[in-house]
């Protein structure tokens, strides 16, 4: 089974390496990773709809032990199972969207050849 997260980190690292940047890698990766989750969050909420969003709502005070945590996660998983939200495929789609968006943002400073090289790296890995 392909590991979604290490794959994302690997591709992000390759992108940054390819641009010759060695510093602040963690900060850049964190921002990109957060963006992936925001895209996923939006996609997930769109799929769930308002009623099911209410069902997965969780306050921190509800969870004080690992057991409570596991029980809550199971409940939430069941809500997601009732929908057609595909986590793996959505994660890969979100990763592609974010990393392509990242390349577009720096695109003004890239040659066409470099941009094509980076986009190809992204499409080959998701």
């Amino acid at each position, binding site marked *: 089974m392909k590991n979604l997260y290490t794959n994302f980190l690997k591709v992000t690292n390759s992108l940054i390496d390819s641009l010759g940047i060695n510093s*602040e890698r963690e900060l850049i990766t964190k921002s990109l990773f957060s963006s992936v989750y925001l895209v996923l969050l*939006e996609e997930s909420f769109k799929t769930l709809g308002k009623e099911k969003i209410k069902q997965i709502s969780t306050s*921190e005070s509800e969870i004080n032990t690992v057991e409570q945590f596991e029980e809550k996660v199971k409940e939430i998983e069941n809500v997601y199972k009732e929908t057609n939200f595909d986590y793996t495929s959505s994660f890969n789609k979100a990763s592609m969207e974010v990393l392509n968006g990242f390349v577009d943002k720096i695109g003004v400073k890239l040659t066409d050849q470099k941009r094509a090289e980076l986009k190809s790296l992204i499409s080959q890995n998701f």
Partner: protein
Amino acid sequence: MNEPKGFEINKEEQFITTKDLIKASGQLLKEKIEKLDVYFTVGGMSTLAMGVATTGFMLYAGNEMVQNIQATEGIPYAQALWNYITPNLDLTQTMAEAHTYWGQWSPVALAPVGLVGIGLGVAEIKQGLTTE
């Protein structure tokens, strides 16, 4: 101090810099936050309702994430998630950080830092696995 420079773009000595990448990733993140902001404003959800719903998603996503790592690396997922991720779900700090960073309050500003918590958790797990 000169900023480290990376990929050379042309003969006029323009370079991609670390700052360019931070700016690009930050702008992207801001756009995603704003997009969600609009979604929730239109959807008519309160900040509190959105916050708790987001926490639900984080639990689900975090669980998926660590299960996925467990499948390939073999670690007890719930304990790992509990140890590494939940301490990062400090909403008060999250809001303060978001406020400092963006200079304004945003109903969804709490989401990214909490989600970064998951990212940090994974990074720590990954580091732990590497050093074991």
